[in-house]
């Protein structure tokens, strides 16, 4: 089980190879991409920033939780940080397992938890020249739009593809 960060483009072919297992009959992956439009604003590029020391520990915990819940062979998640352009891949999740069902399920669980729990932030830059930290500045101005989840800290309005 591995979670890691990269400052360069995610090499999905190399990542996929890490999941290969003679007992695996299937593999599922998820890619989160930078989208051009969010909350009525035309996005030009993004910056991702992470508190890596804590995110690595929490990321490993998420992968361990997925492995405990579903009978999977291997799971891997790579999150990119730094400046990303439209259609760049921000995050990649891959899971191999004996049968396809648990690979899909574990993949879904991992990406959902990563988005909610890891200390990773995204700044959107807009065509208007404006920019903003997603989930911070809008919610600070309009706290009534918040909706907490079990972790008490969910601001995810599903602003992006991932």
């Amino acid at each position, binding site marked *: 089980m591995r979670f890691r960060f990269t400052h360069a483009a995610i090499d999905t072919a190399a990542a996929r190879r890490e999941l290969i297992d003679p007992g695996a009959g299937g593999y599922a992956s998820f890619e989160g991409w930078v989208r051009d439009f969010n909350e009525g604003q035309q996005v030009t590029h993004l910056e991702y920033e992470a508190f890596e020391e804590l995110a690595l520990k929490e990321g490993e915990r998420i992968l361990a939780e997925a492995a405990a819940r579903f009978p999977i062979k291997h799971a891997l998640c790579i999150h990119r940080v730094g400046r990303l352009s439209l259609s760049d891949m921000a995050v990649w999740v891959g899971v191999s397992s004996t049968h396809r069902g648990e690979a899909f399920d574990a993949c879904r669980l991992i990406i959902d938890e990563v988005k909610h729990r890891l*200390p990773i932030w995204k700044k959107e830059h807009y065509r208007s020249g404006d920019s903003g930290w*997603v989930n911070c500045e809008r919610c600070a101005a309009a706290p009534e739009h918040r909706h907490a989840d079990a972790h008490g800290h969910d601001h995810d309005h599903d602003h992006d593809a991932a």
Partner: protein
Amino acid sequence: MSVHAPLRGLVLAGGASGRMKRDKATLLYEGRSQLDRAVELVARHVDQVFVSVRASQGADPARARYPLIVDSVEGRGPIIGIRSASAAHPGNAWLVVACDLPFLSDRALRQLIAERDPAASATAYTSVHDGLPEPLCAIWEPKAAAEIDAFLGRGKDCPRKFLMNHAVRLLEPKDRRALDNVNTPEEYVRASDLIPASSADPTTAPAMQLKIQYFALMREQSGRSEETVETLASTPADLYAELKARHGFTLPREQLKVAVNSEFAAWSRPLAAGDAVVFIPPVAGG
């Protein structure tokens, strides 16, 4: 929600020291002048500290080593020092402290900052002696500037009367001795005897150093990626209140999580010297 104006420090050292018959700013306690002690104390709670002086004191070496704000008008007392600070640096709130408060403590300043009401004209303590507001250890908000102008325009200049007649948040001081001031040679002798004892007071927790790292919105609002702070805050909750006031963070604590030594932590977790603290604004990975 309201946005706190950034908090700066203002140590008032422009008094005439009439009853003391010598300059109160240079009175020594434990070998250090009152002015130096007051500036150091305030600097532990805000980013920038200025010293308020009269025009004739600007060249005085005890004062000139600090960034000065010179009174715009002579002879109308400390309210002019506060107004001159707002004029020199508009948009800031001011943690105003008179330099003749030898018992003033970190605890007293910390309570003031933690319980500050930015929507009021000022946040101040009530006197333990007469219950009236204490203007010279108080936080004065930006909106007070225009109100002071109107007050001065009516021929008034008593800052205590100003507080009594405006929307002010009043607090009961937890440190009941902090605001005892020293105006006469007899009071100075008595205070000098008490000061070493006060340093050893076991109810006064020692300040400790913490390492704070900032990310994303908090990094931008504080203007730094990390800093080492000297603080009396004993929990992340107290620490956030202090740093929110100092850096003008817009996010309420309820929207944040906190990590201590790279693990998620409770807001009430006791902090120890050397702890590394990170405030985590709403996340948006993926």
